[in-house]
């Protein structure tokens, strides 16, 4: 490739993304690819389709391809450990992005904290609905770490507001259509709901559809991820806020630091990409980028 | 004979299915060393009766006694334990498995807990030799001809070494030589004291092999007579009226050739077959099992594509291997394998009868189902199909009535040339005559019939002209007037170079 900002000619980096089902990770990939282009390194991206063992396979395959560094966006923090060990054995540095790896040595974890994000969402939603009333939670695919951590963070955060009651938590599998159906159903049994926390923007957008004219007025919805569609909904006033993780920035940083790792530069154990609450007031920060 | 020990006894047996009373109080007894014939029209309840002896069905009322003790036969293993073996009317072989495995089905020889395939196939070879079929025990059953399958079924039942052997129309798909072999075997069994229940629609077989006859009518046992009873009397007992003529062929003047077959060949099946069938004619096609008659019929009809040769209908050449074109030209085929090729078993009677005319009854893609039903009702009535209503699943019809449906759907189609492959297989004498009358009226109205049959009297009685095949070749042609059983058989066993060996 073209000699970029002082990088080694044909550095090959492999990146295994947990899923590309979701615009959030598509953005993460886009950030990573942009940075790779800028630095003049070859980046290979694979999609693990949310399957931890497929991810191990992909990392294994990266080592066969003699990648110089591997970026892993774990499907699951625990299950990624063996993948990291495989890379370790071949002396390939690993950068974890978006989620950490439990029980494996990575050169760096580039992440924003899902639990902290869940907590932020709770605080924001509480503020939006005046710290009282009934709220419902739309959960992601049960048993996935994103759903676990965000749900955990939200549950912890919402405890601080005794006036708020979580009247229902139901799974909608991170899917917009299911978000719509589940929210429709919950409105039947809980017509008095004033707040919704969706563990990602896709479900939030589905819930907004279900709420119709009530969205943004009688009922405040807080999403997660800050996807382009989510930001549009914030602009339209239907989505109150989204916990934006700046996936493109995550992607960019991971590639930057992977290249540093290839050059055996010293890296900090974690690089924190700030989680931000995207609202109508600070929207330009996100859409501008 | 009459002093022989009674092995099996049935008292007041009853069985009903939704909408049908199949059996309504049947009494029956069986002694060691006798061949007891069950006689009755299609749907009289013969198969239902024996299925309760073999554990396939449970009776609703009445009881079964073995050696004087009442028994409950809940499944096939119970029957086997009581020493009862059964050859069913419908094949009960597993097509994907080898002949050897089918013969040992459910009780393969084992060594150290593992199936001993070698010994299984060795034992199989012995059994096949016994019944006189020269097939390799490792052949898959799917690759056998229908008669070979029947012989395998017989060998399978014999292998059980049972005290009671039940045979439901074993001869329906066999030709004379195999029937002879079968009768020899039955004779030997009888001498060993085995009791045999024998069902057949070939009345001449009764005197040859039977000792006693129990006649069933409408699910009841009406009488018991010695096997020596004259055929006319048996018919009267069974049908309830006498039949004056078993083969009522009324020849009509032969017209122009409707079907011409020229030098038709198919590797592995037949070669150089040429013949023609004229309007108003019934041409019989005789031959031993495996002679290749079915294959010729299928190739003519377009079910298989021949390698060479041509088929012309009313002078127009048909494309090879195109059933639709053959049908449009006016050909029809009643296949020999009614379950595999003739019927949609899970569909109802009306649906099956309307299958061939489905396209004709469609206008703009929509089917005139009311019209189809009316036509089906007419044909079912004409053929005397015993059923509860037109919506009955064909699967639940008796074997003979199923055969009537296969024929019936082609009657509706009004085919110019009808090819009948074993058309009266499993059909009772009364209904046979009905079908022969239908053939008469077809030919009288200028249609033509090509009839394949392994039933020599039928071929002789109903054909105007007889073609004989042996080993994939057409070996001779006889005028009906000159033909008799011996002349046909002489041709059928002609030693020709086997068209199938290359």
């Amino acid at each position, binding site marked *: 490739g073209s000699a970029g900002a002082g990088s080694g000619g044909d550095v090959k980096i492999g990146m295994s993304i947990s899923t590309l089902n979701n615009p959030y990770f598509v953005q993460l990939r886009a950030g990573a690819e942009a940075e790779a282009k800028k630095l003049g390194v070859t980046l290979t991206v694979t999609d693990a389709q949310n399957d931890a063992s497929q991810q191990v396979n992909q990392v294994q395959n990266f080592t066969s391809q003699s990648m110089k560094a591997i970026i892993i966006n774990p499907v699951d923090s625990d299950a990624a450990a063996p993948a990291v060990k495989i890379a370790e054995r071949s002396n390939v540095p690993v950068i974890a992005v978006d989620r950490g790896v439990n029980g494996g040595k990575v050169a760096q974890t580039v992440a924003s904290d899902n639990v902290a994000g869940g907590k932020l969402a709770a605080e924001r939603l509480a503020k939006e609905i005046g710290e009282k009333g009934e709220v419902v939670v739309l959960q992601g695919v049960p048993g996935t770490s994103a759903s676990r951590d965000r749900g955990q963070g939200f549950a912890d955060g919402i405890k601080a507001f005794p006036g708020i009651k979580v009247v229902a938590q139901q799974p909608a599998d991170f899917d917009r*259509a299911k978000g719509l159906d589940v929210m429709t159903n919950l409105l039947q049994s809980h017509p008095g709901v004033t707040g919704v926390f969706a563990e990602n923007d896709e479900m939030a957008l589905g819930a907004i559809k279900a709420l119709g004219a009530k969205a943004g007025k009688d009922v405040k919805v807080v999403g997660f991820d800050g996807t382009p569609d989510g930001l549009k909904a914030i602009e339209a006033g239907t989505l109150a806020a989204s916990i934006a993780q700046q996936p493109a920035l995550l992607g960019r940083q991971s590639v930057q630091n992977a290249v540093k790792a290839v050059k055996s530069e010293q890296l900090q154990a974690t690089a924190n990409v700030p989680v931000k609450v995207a609202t109508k007031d600070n929207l330009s920060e996100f859409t501008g980028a | 004979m009459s002093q022989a020990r009674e092995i099996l006894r049935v008292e007041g047996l009853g069985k009903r299915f939704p909408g049908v009373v199949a059996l309504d109080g049947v009494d029956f007894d069986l002694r060691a060393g006798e061949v007891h014939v069950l006689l009755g029209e299609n749907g009289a309840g013969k198969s239902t009766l024996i299925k309760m002896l073999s554990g396939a069905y449970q009776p609703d009322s009445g009881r079964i006694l073995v050696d004087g003790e009442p028994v409950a036969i809940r499944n096939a293993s119970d029957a086997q334990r009581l020493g009862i073996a059964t050859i069913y009317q419908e094949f009960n072989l597993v097509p994907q498995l080898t002949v050897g495995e089918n013969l040992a089905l459910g009780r393969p020889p084992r060594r150290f807990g593992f199936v001993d395939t070698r010994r299984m196939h060795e034992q199989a070879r012995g059994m096949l030799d016994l019944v006189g079929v020269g097939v390799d025990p490792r052949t898959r059953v799917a690759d056998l001809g229908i008669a070979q399958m029947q012989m395998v079924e017989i060998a399978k039942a014999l292998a059980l070494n049972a005290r009671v052997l039940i045979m439901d129309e074993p001869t329906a798909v066999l030709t004379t030589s195999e029937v002879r072999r079968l009768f020899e075997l039955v004779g030997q069994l009888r001498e060993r004291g085995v009791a045999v229940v024998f069902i057949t629609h070939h009345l001449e077989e009764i005197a040859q092999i039977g000792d006693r006859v129990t006649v069933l009518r409408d699910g009841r046992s009406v009488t018991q007579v010695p096997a020596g009873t004259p055929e006319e009397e048996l018919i009267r007992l069974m049908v309830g009226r006498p039949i004056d003529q078993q083969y009522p062929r009324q020849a009509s003047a032969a017209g122009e050739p409707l079907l011409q077959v020229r030098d038709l060949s198919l590797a592995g099946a037949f070669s150089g077959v040429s013949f023609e069938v004229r309007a108003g004619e019934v041409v019989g096609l005789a031959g031993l099992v495996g002679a290749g008659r079915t294959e010729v019929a299928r190739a003519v009809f377009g079910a298989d594509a021949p390698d060479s040769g041509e088929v012309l209908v009313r002078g127009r050449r048909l494309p090879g291997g195109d059933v639709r074109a053959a049908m449009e030209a006016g050909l029809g085929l009643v296949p020999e394998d009614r379950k*595999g090729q003739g019927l949609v078993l899970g569909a109802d009677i009306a649906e099956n009868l309307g*299958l061939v005319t489905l396209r004709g009854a469609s206008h703009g893609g*929509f089917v005139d189902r009311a019209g189809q039903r009316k036509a089906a009702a007419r044909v079912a009535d004409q053929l005397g199909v015993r059923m509860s*209503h037109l919506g009955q699943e064909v699967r639940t019809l008796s074997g003979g009535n199923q055969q009537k449906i296969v024929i019936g759907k082609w009657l509706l189609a009004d085919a110019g040339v009808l090819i009948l492959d074993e058309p009266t297989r499993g059909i009772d004498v009364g209904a046979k005559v009905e079908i022969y009358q239908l053939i008469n009226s077809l030919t009288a109205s200028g249609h033509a019939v090509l009839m394949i049959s392994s039933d020599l009297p039928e071929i002789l009685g109903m054909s105007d002209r007889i073609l004989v095949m042996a080993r994939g070749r057409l070996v001779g042609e006889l005028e009906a007037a000159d033909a008799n059983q011996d002349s046909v058989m002489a041709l059928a066993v002609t030693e020709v170079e086997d068209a199938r060996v290359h």
Partner: protein
Amino acid sequence: MSTNVLAVRPTARTLLAENGSVAALVVLVVALSLLSGDFLTVTNLLNVGVQAAVTAILAFGSTFVIITSGIDLSVGAVAALSAIVLAWTAADSGLPWPLATLVALAVGIGCGLVNAALIAYGKLPPFIATLAMLGVARGLALVVSQGSPIEMPEAVSHLGDTVGGYLPVPVLVMALMGVIAAVVLNRTYAGRAMYAIGGNEEAARLSGIAVSRQKLVTYALSGAFAAVAGIVLASRLASAQPQAASGYELDAIAAVVIGGASLSGGKGRALGTLVGALILAVLRNGLNLLSVSAFWQQVVIGVVIALAVLLDTLRRRSGR
């Protein structure tokens, strides 16, 4: 012969006996009405209808295929692809929406024809041919959309709305497609041929039915129904999603089988399929209303599906 041979009209009783799943649906509805006061309201029942619509439309298409003893695993992916193509041609290529809709339908039909060609002429097992198509269609949906949702044209999105603020359009579309499926199955040559092919393909062929051509019709219909389902789904969300309808093929097949069809072919009805789809939708709706925990939901759905079909088979057996 003494019985009336023309007595073949299906009476209400035989209809119920044949579509035994109706009983299961009734039991389910009664149980949920007792358990949750919110269930038996007009609004909620209409919601259930809307939520059943996409599965039901896919399942109508699958009914054709299953009757011929085939299987179509590609319906969900084809639905997504069709919707993406609609949104993409309308947005990016600026095609007017009616044309874009036709293109989307053509895509669905095209996928079906490829399935059928592989099956009828390539002799692939339907499972493999349509599994391959699942991958291809889903992949193409991702490629075309670059992995991101595309907004649906305003006009088409009304398919997700209500008529007169009350009657949801998806329910109307479901009803329409159901009627089409029923008419095709009961009244047309193609439909009757499907039953014959599924019941005994060889007998059908020897009765003059052009089996390969009818398979083309069957899978093309399935593809067309999938396209309609995809468009309805995308209209409800006002956006076409590349991952929409993932895994819906299993739901569709389940609806058909719960509705009384057999995967070995020759059996099945549009009404039964509708009931099957409704059972699934009622179940999911009810679990939401009852706030059953996420982890237990899958367990309950599994148990209830098994019980529903069990009820059906037991009733049918005792009816003998």
